[in-house]
C-alpha cells in the first residue's frame, strides 16, 4: 500500500524514469559502447584477416619481415593446396609455354608454370573436402531427423523413465572425445567401420544426437499443444498434424539444431584423426599434414583453412534469421 500511495494517482509525474537517449551523457556512453564493440570485433577478426591475406600471398611474401600489407594477390596457395605437381621436363616446359602464349592454358596451370611445374592431378585435399561435405552433411541430416522425432516424443508423450532417458542421452556428452577415441578405435577396427564414411557418419550422428534431442525437445515444449489438438479435431491424424502444423512452427528450432550439428561435424578433429586414414579422412586432420612436406606451406594452409571456413559461413548466413530467432526462442516470447 505504501508504494501505491507514493506513486499513486495523487502525485503528478514530474520526472521520467526512462533514460532519454538524447542527453550528452547517454550519447557519450552510447559512443563508448560502439567503440568497445568495434575493438572486440577487430581483435576477433585479426586472425581471420591474416588468414585470408596469407591465402592470397606468395610464399616469400608470407615470411617477409615486416609483413607486406600491399601485395599482388595470387592463387598460388590454392594451386599448392588443390593440385599435385611435378617439375616439368624442359621439353614439356616448352610445350606448356607455347600453349600459355596462345591462351589455351587454365589459370592453375599458368600459375604452376611460373615456378616451372606442371599439374599432374588434383591433390588429396579435394577428396578430403568432399569427404567432409558428405560426412558432415549426412550426419547432420540424420541427427536432425532423429532428434525431431525423439524430441517430439519426449515433449508430448508420457515416456516411461523419461528423465532417466534424457539424462542418459545427455551423458554421452560427458566424456571428452580424446578419452573415448581409443576404445572407439578398437571397436571400429573390429566392426570394420574404421576409415569408412558410414562409420564417421554414425559416430557424428550419435555424438550430435544428445544435444539435438535436447534442443528439439525444448523447441517443441514451446509450441502449445492446442495447435495439434485443433488439427486432430479438424480431422487429421497425429502424424499429419505433426508434419502440417507442428513442424512448420518448429522450423527455427530445426534450423538452429542443424547448424549446431553441422558445425560440430564439420570442425571435428580428434575422432577424424584417429578413426580415418585414406578413404574417409576429412579436411580438418589433413590441413596440418601439409606442415611436413618440404617446409611449412603457409599459403596452402591458409588457403585450406579459408576453403574449409566458407561452407559453414554460407550455411550460417543463409539460416541467420532462423538462428537468431532460434537461439532466443522462449526468451522473448513470454
Amino acid at each position, binding site marked *: 500500500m505504501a508504494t501505491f500511495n507514493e506513486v499513486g494517482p495523487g502525485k503528478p509525474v514530474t520526472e521520467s524514469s526512462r533514460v532519454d537517449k538524447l542527453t550528452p551523457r547517454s550519447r557519450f556512453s552510447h559512443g563508448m559502447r560502439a567503440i568497445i564493440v568495434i575493438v572486440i570485433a577487430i581483435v576477433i577478426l585479426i586472425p581471420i584477416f591474416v588468414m585470408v591475406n596469407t591465402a592470397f600471398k606468395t610464399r616469400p611474401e608470407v615470411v617477409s619481415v615486416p609483413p607486406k600489407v600491399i601485395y599482388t594477390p595470387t592463387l598460388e596457395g590454392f594451386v599448392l593446396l588443390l593440385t599435385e605437381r611435378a617439375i616439368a621436363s624442359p621439353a614439356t616446359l616448352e610445350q606448356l609455354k607455347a600453349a600459355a602464349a596462345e591462351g589455351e592454358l587454365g589459370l592453375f596451370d599458368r600459375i604452376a608454370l611460373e615456378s616451372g611445374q606442371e599439374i599432374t592431378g588434383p591433390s588429396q585435399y579435394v577428396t578430403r573436402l568432399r569427404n567432409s561435405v558428405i560426412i558432415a552433411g549426412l550426419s547432420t541430416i540424420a541427427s536432425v531427423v532423429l532428434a525431431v522425432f525423439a524430441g517430439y516424443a519426449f515433449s508430448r508423450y508420457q515416456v516411461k523413465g523419461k528423465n532417466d532417458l534424457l539424462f542418459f542421452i545427455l551423458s554421452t556428452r560427458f566424456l571428452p572425445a580424446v578419452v573415448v577415441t581409443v576404445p572407439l578405435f578398437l571397436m571400429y577396427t573390429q566392426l570394420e567401420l574404421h576409415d569408412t564414411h558410414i562409420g564417421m557418419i554414425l559416430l557424428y550422428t550419435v555424438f550430435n544426437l544428445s544435444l539435438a534431442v535436447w534442443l528439439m525437445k525444448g523447441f517443441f515444449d514451446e509450441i*502449445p499443444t*492446442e*495447435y495439434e*489438438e*485443433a*488439427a*486432430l*479435431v*479438424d*480431422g*487429421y*491424424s497425429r502424424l*499429419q498434424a505433426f508434419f502440417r*502444423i507442428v513442424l*512448420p*512452427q518448429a522450423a527455427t528450432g530445426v534450423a538452429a539444431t542443424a547448424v549446431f550439428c553441422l558445425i560440430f561435424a564439420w570442425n571435428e578433429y580428434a575422432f577424424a584423426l584417429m578413426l580415418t586414414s585414406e578413404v574417409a579422412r576429412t579436411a580438418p586432420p589433413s590441413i596440418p599434414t601439409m606442415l611436413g612436406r618440404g617446409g611449412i606451406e603457409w599459403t596452402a594452409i591458409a588457403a585450406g583453412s579459408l576453403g574449409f571456413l566458407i561452407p559453414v559461413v554460407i550455411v550460417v548466413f543463409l539460416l541467420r534469421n532462423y538462428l537468431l530467432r532460434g537461439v532466443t526462442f522462449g526468451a522473448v516470447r513470454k
Partner: protein
Amino acid sequence: MATIKLQQVEKKFGDFQAVKPMDLTIQDGEFVVLLGPSGCGKTTTLRMISGLETVTTGTIMLGDRNVTWLHPSERDVAFVFQFYALYPHISARENISFPLRAQGESKDVINQRVQEVAALLRIEHLLNQRPGNLSGGDQQRVALARALVRRPEAFLMDEPLGALDADFRETMRAEIKQLHIDQNATTVYVTHDQIEAMAMGDRIVVMSEAVVQQAGSPHEVYYDPANLFVARFIGSPGMNLVSSVYSQGVVSIPGTENRYSVPDGWQTPINETLEGEGQIVLGFRPEAAQLKTDGPLSGEVYASELQGAFSVLHVNVNTDDIVHIRSDRQIDYPIGTTLRFDIDPQMVRFFDPGTEAGIKREVSQ
C-alpha cells in the same frame, strides 16, 4: 447434428479423479453450458467428448455412434479453444479451410464454403491475414469460422471468450448465441463465468469437485438451486444463505428476534426432511427481499454499494450472517441504520445443512 450422450463417464489422472462417473444427455440442437469453478472437471468432460482425452470408464454416444474409443479426427466434432489455437504460419483463409482439406473436398467447394462462413461471421476482409495480425476478437471469429465451416455433428467450445476484453466479450457472446440460433447446432460450451452461462445456455450443467451439482435451465439453476453450492455459485452476489432453526412452521435466526413464517407448500416437505424440527438454511436472492417497515426480519446496514441501476445493501442479520439486499438506488441508507424487510414467499428457498441439498416445495395442484 446429433445428440450427445454420456453414460457413467469417468476420468482419472493417476489417483486423482478429475470427473466422477456422470450421466448427461445433450439434445440435438441444444446449447448446453458446463459451468463451474476452475478444476471442477468441466474442461476434462469437454475434452473427453472431443476425444482429446480418453475416458477411464463409461460410454460416449454421438447420435447413434459409440465414439468412446474413436480418434478425435473420426468423431466429427469441432472444438473452439480458449486461446483460439489458430495455426500461426498460415493465413486466416487457410486456417478456415484446413478441416475441409482434411476431408478432401474439391477446391470449388472449399472456396464456396469458406466464403459463406466468412460472410456469416463478417470476416471476409481478413481472410488473407495471418492470425498474428488480427485482434483477439477477430482471431476468435476465425476460430469459430474454422469450426462452422465443417458442419460438424457438434460444437465444443472451451471458454472461447475467456481471453477477450470485457466489452468485446459481450459482443461475441451475442454473436455466438445468434450463430447457434441460426445453425441450430448441438453445442457444448464450457465457462466459469456464470453471467455467460445464464445468457447463452438452453441448459446449464453446474459442476464442482468432479461432480455434476445440477443440470437445468438458467431459470431453474437460478431460482431452484439443487444445493448450497449452486445457490452460492450462481448469481452475483450469490443467494443469501442464513443458518437458522426451524420449529413448527417458523424459521428463526439464532440470537436475534428474527422470525420468518414458512409460506404455504413448504411445511410438509420441511417437516419430512428435518423430521419435525432442527437446523435449516434459509435462502433468498437479493432481489427477493422487500424492505418494509413491518417486515418480520431486521438487520443493521453494514455497507452499501451502488451498482448503477440499483444499490446492494449488506445487512447484518446476526453477528455471523450478512445478507445482500437489492434496494432503490435513489434512497440512501446510512451505515448503522436498522432495516426491516420481508421475503417474497414465491422466492424463498430452504436447504438441509446436513446434506446441503435444497428442499423441494410441494407441487401445488
